[in-house]
């Protein structure tokens, strides 16, 4: 799906927990998810903290969409 969309020239940030799969299928902008059953957040830390994690990750996603990449890039940290 990532490639199907990106081939129209729209940048796609793939937020996925299993990064090797994302790399294999060919996503260009990748943000590692927290866990398979909860990619954006961590409910085991309580709702408030879980949402904070999600906010940080989505901000990172918006930043990744504004970042030029040469090839497949995994955005591991908030600072890049």
């Amino acid at each position, binding site marked *: 799906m990532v490639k199907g*969309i990106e081939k129209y020239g*729209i940048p796609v940030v793939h937020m996925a927990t299993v990064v090797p799969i994302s790399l294999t299928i060919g996503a260009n902008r990748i943000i590692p998810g927290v866990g398979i059953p909860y990619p954006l957040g961590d409910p085991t830390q309580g709702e408030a903290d879980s949402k904070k994690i999600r906010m940080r990750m989505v901000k990172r996603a918006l930043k990744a969409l504004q970042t030029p990449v040469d090839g497949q890039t995994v955005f591991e940290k908030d600072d890049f």
Partner: protein
Amino acid sequence: MAKYKIVHYLNQFFAGIGGEEMADYQPEVREGVVGPGAALKAALGDDYDIVATVICGDNYFGENLDKATDTIIEMVKKYEPDVFVAGPAFNAGRYGVACGTICKAVEDRLGIPVLTAAYEENPGTDMFKKDVIIVKAGNSSADMKNVIPVMAKLIKKMATGEEILGPAIEGYHERGIRVNYFAEKRGSERGLEMLIKKMKGEPFETDLPMPKFDRVEPAAPIKDIKHATIAVVTSGGIVPQGNPDHIESSNATKFGEYSIAGMDHMDPKDFMTVHGGYDRQFVLANPNLVVPLDVLRELEKAGEFGKLYDSFFTTTGTGTATGSAAKFGDAIGKKLVEDHVDGVILVST
């Protein structure tokens, strides 16, 4: 007298008629062997007879696909062969496509077993390997002596009705067909043996080769985020309660598009997940873990980006064929481009 009859197909070049200048040669049938047919007959032995050879120029075939096919089918039919053989085509593209086309037609229309051979990068191989058995051949006719015995063995199996084994054993291009069988060793043993070989740097053969994935050039980044429209897509199986479009929990054949207009978060009263590949308890309690609508709305209000697209797109990623996923992506991409979406957040579980 020979027990089994073979009809062989060749192009103008291998029939010895000529090269490119004779590529317009119209279909012709000759009794007996021509060109590489002699070696094939020798490899097959006395029980097999190549009763006729059909010859056609590659350009003529390519430019008159339907007419040439019809003509050749009539020629083949007359001889009532037990097996129809074309090529080998090696890396000759038009020849490979002709061999594949005519083999498929003979099998479909006459119900006769067919066989051809070609190099893996011959376009005919990709086009027809799922339809017909294509023996692996080198990229030039220098490989003839190696290919002929492999073809002969398969022709004999086809003629006598003997079981044809997997592509690696018989030497043909993989067709993507799975056949159940009883392995001598169970999966855990096979897996460990592979792992040990891999650690030693020795070659090993996987039970399930991964499909090859193509690549897409990274799209240019968003320049003006303050006016950008962002859309959310997910393979996490998030659907409205009740799953109105019956999106499958595994091996999805469709995707859905659902409105999030006017909502400030994904309410578990409204949305659920049908994904059959992960523990759903967390996402059922809070679907924002997959479709982060709550934080996206806050960021939208704060002016961190222009606008959130009014709906999200969703399917189930588990067990879903990459071919299906590619189709979903294409359909979603087409719509998003029409609606001037500038960036996509795609969440996978």
